[in-house]
């Protein structure tokens, strides 16, 4: 049985939880708190959504194809 945590403790570790940076025990304690606390659960969902949104918007961009050709030319005289 893991330690019980309150809302403040859960929210303080929100980003570490979403970034998967916590120990399995702390992660479990937060997951249990979220299961019992709809307001915290909404808050975590909102932040998770924000991070996914950020990632999706920024990763749409990749290197221009000419850049790869330029690099290959420079490195291997192609």
């Amino acid at each position, binding site marked *: 049985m893991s330690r019980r945590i309150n809302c403040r403790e859960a929210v303080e570790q929100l980003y570490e939880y979403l970034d998967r940076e916590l120990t399995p025990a702390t992660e479990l304690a937060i997951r249990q708190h979220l299961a019992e606390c709809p307001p915290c659960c909404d808050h975590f*969902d909102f932040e998770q959504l924000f991070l996914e949104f950020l990632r999706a918007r920024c990763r749409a961009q990749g290197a221009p194809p000419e850049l790869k050709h330029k690099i290959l030319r420079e490195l291997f005289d192609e």
Partner: protein
Amino acid sequence: MTTPPTPPPPTPPAPSPAAEAEKRASFEREALVHLDSLYRVALRLTRNAAEADDLVQETMLKAYRAWDQFEKGTNAKGWLLTILRHAFINEYRRRTRHPETVDLDAIEPFSVFSELQDEDPQGTFFDRIVDDEVLRAIDGLPEQFRETVVLSDVEGLSYEEIARMLKVPVGTVKSRLFRARRLLQRQLYDYAVGMGYIKGSPR
């Protein structure tokens, strides 16, 4: 009695064509595959497409020259990003001093979720914000926040990897990420209110 002539110092053997081919193949396999990541980070650091191009080219050139020292099979992405960041600091940042545009005191208290938990708790307004607006918001962050958020949220590096790369404690990475994300939310929230996507609350 004459002293025997000293032999000339040995010249290092030229790498065999096979070794060169192998070097190239492993570089393409392990380094060039990270080109998109390098470019995205370069673009957010320089905030300029032409400079990002140059920075990535220079990074790849340096990486190829140092490729024999890289321990194959370890984290090439982190290694390349470290080279890129050094090149940026040494050569680009010196040339261009951008004013930092964000008021740091305004960061902590504002939580977009608290503002919106009645109006839009599912954050559906995010869907209406276009890529360019998000990139603009990131580019408006102070440099330390910008690089941390890009390495974490865009490129998926762990706190530990970022801390090692930036040579700061993990706690610093954590607090920069917290502030950077809050700042971004705030910017995007203000934008969404301005565009009429959400009503928001008067401040």
